[in-house]
């Protein structure tokens, strides 16, 4: 059986493609390729390489004669170099990421209140929820809630008004997510009521029509209670007013 020479691709094979994640396999593959490149006969390999190099150079000179071993060694060196660069890049990236994480943690820590106040709040939290009137400062403490949840059993952490003598102010810490949920629910409930009383399917009419019904049945029929609709054609009326002003100005000018 004729063993067809597998043609190495014209495009230069990139080092990364060769040196992939599975490095040993690619090495094997590379070796394989090289082995395959020489289809069981050393003589055939040379003319292949010669062919390539010959195509690339377009010279009348005779191509360089490279031994297989040197070429192999070169290729291996290249692989190693590439592998090392990739490893270095990876480590660099890892370090960068680590540094970034630390930076973020520091920033978050800075955003939190000092530990003393946090302790006070966690110990003073009750299940009672009271929005007290009076000067209230709402503080967005989402990180703090995580800490609290670890400490308490209550699901929703709404903290009582804390009178801290040292700081001389009273404030209430409220979780913003709860507020949004509550507002959304209230809106939904009001929408339900509005729909069931004034929505489609209900037989509603305007106050004007309702009150004018009596006027229609009088022995001397009268106009509706709100006969004029002053909100009709506002834009038209405005345009007319502007036009009239401009026309007057023009008229005065031509007269003079």
């Amino acid at each position, binding site marked *: 059986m004729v063993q067809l020479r597998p043609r190495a691709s014209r495009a230069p094979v990139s080092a990364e493609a060769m040196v992939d994640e599975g490095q040993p396999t690619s090495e094997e593959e590379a070796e394989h390729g090289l082995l395959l490149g020489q289809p069981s006969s050393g003589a055939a390999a040379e003319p292949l390489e010669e062919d390539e190099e010959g195509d690339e150079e377009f010279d009348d000179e005779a191509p360089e004669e490279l031994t297989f071993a040197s070429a192999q060694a070169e290729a291996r060196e290249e692989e190693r170099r590439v592998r090392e660069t990739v490893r270095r890049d990876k480590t660099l990236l890892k370090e960068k990421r680590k540094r970034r994480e630390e930076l973020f943690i520091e920033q978050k820590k800075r955003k939190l209140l000092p530990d003393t106040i946090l302790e006070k709040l966690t110990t003073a939290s009750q299940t*009672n*929820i*009271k*929005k007290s*009137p*009076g000067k209230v400062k709402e503080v967005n403490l989402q990180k703090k809630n995580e800490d609290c949840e670890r400490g308490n059993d209550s699901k*929703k952490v*709404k903290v009582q008004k804390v009178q801290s003598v040292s700081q001389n102010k009273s404030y209430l810490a409220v979780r913003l997510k709860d507020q949004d949920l*509550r507002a959304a*629910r*209230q809106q939904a*409930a*009001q929408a*339900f009521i509005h729909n*069931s*009383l*004034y929505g489609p*399917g*209900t*037989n*509603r*009419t*305007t*106050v*004007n*029509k*309702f*009150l004018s*019904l009596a006027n*229609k*049945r009088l022995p001397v029929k009268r106009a509706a*209670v*709100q006969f004029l609709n002053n909100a009709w054609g506002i834009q038209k009326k405005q345009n007319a007013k502007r036009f009239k002003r401009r026309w007057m100005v023009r008229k005065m000018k031509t007269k003079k």
Partner: protein
Amino acid sequence: MGEFKVHRVRFFNYVPSAIRCVAYNNHSNRLAVSRTDGTVEIYNLSANYFQEKFFPGHESRATEALCWAEGQRLFSAGLNGEIIEYDLQALKIKYAMDAFGGPIWSMAASPSGSQLLIGCEDGSVKLFQITPDKIQFERNFDRQKSRILSLSWHPSGTHIAAGSIDYISVFDVKSGSAVRKMIVDRQYMGVSKRKCIVWGVAFLSDGTIISVDSAGKVQFWDSATGTLVKSHLIANADVQSIAVANQEDSFVVGTAEGTVFHFQLVPVTSNSSEKQWVRTKPFQHHTHDVRTVAHSPTSLISGGTDTHLVIRPLMEKLEVKNYDAALRKITFPHRRLISCSRKRQLLLFQFAHHLELWRLGSTVATGKMGDPENIICSCISPCGSWIAYSTASRFFLYRLNYEHDNISLKRVSKMPAFLRSALQILFSEDSTKLFVASNQGTLHIVQLSGGSFKHLHAFQPQSGTVEAMCLLAVSPDGNWLAASGTSAGVHLHCTVPAYNFPVTAMAIAPNTNNLVIAHSDQQVFEYSIPDKHYTDWSRTVQKHGFHHLWLQRDTPITHISFHPKRPMHILLHDAYMFCIIDKSLPLPNDKTLLYNPFPPTNESDVVQRRTAHAFKISKIYKPLLFMDLLDERTLVAVERPLDDIIAQLPPPIKKKKFGT
């Protein structure tokens, strides 16, 4: 009497908010009314239906249910998911407790008054125990599929009926499980795509459940078997409320068309013992939805989107048939919402969330608050340079500067801590002092000078009672201050003898320093402060008695003022008339005409002198919200025609009339 020039003001765009819930308390004969803006008002039905207390509203509070529990405690629940208890002594909110069930749609107190049940958006029914100072969550009942819109206890306290969307469930209180579930028809004898919302349920002691729903039906169910006994179709629109009398022989329902129906338990034939429920009387006193009704032992109370509170006494329940049996419609507020500065001719209008300042002739400035809380009271000083107003938690003071017809407002910051929430604010006549009645019962006096203020004195409540001071009056020379509490005691440096009806208006006359007090039963007293006893004129009036038509007026007197040059004249007004009392003229007896027509000039002098009496009443300007004397020849009258209020209400149900 003299002639006056009158400024008629009709641009006060006052629209009261719709009534959402009503709760009647049998022991004290009081009615608690809650409106859509969160205000809760308490009316004393035995004191001529006078509004004696009120709690200001809040934007986020959408009250859906109101109930009285034992010991005169008032609770309300709303769509923000909180149960609020009101402190009736200090006129503030005791606490607001989150029920963790989402928006609360209904609330009912147990017949014993010690437990509270609420129905929530997520379909759960929660039971709370009422402890002496708070309420405590006890347990949840079985959770249902859709929101619980109405609740009712069985009189024995063992079972509960809960109305939801398309069905009614009966729970057993001890176990908390749903015993019965009754499916409600979506339409009377038919099918419909729209879900049937059960707006109200009532549980009678014989096990009958009465339900009213959005299809216009009133249905009677038997809770033991869970079957429908009788169905009445009474309206083409929703029937939104139901209230049963204590004796369970009559109940009242309110519909969205504004009709209120009275059902009674009548014997089938005249001498049989078997009884049945019959629809007896329809009442059409409202134009819009009647969202709430209550049944007191003698009358039917209804309120709804058209903002009137209608109290209809039932003739068969009353023993004495006198003027008390007439229909009472409460439309206009029983407090003053307008203050006037005489020197600068400025009027300050108080709305729920903002104040408007008008100069007679043009509008000057409008102040708007960002607060969601409602304004409780406001006042402008007589010289026109200070404005003060208060909400439930804060107090504001502004200074006005006038430059060539322009007015600029400047806020005085750094209010002292004790000036938190005021029930009544008043400036002294020379505008140097500010009197603030706070809801802890203390009265603060603050001295104003230039752009700053200084706290002068605080009167503590006498005899240790924490009572809220509701009305203030100051004498023009600045020596005397009168304050009245909610339970009809007027305190000065001495105390005026107590009267069992609350005070509706007070004022001190300029030169004689007589305190004129008007009570809710339409009695007017005059008390001389320097001499510390009632004046002679007051004694003669009391001995003589007021004219019967004067005593039969519906609305309370809200403002009293005096003429600077004529000490014998007292000017007072209520919503439908204004009156100048001339103390020098004789008093009318019951036979004379109280409302004198315009004096005929062709009659002889003798006849005129004989028929003239002290009460000169004019009904030209009505409905009046405020009337005051600006100077000797000018009056200002702020009117609010009812049509202007109705024009701004939400849409009513369409009525089909023949021929239109």
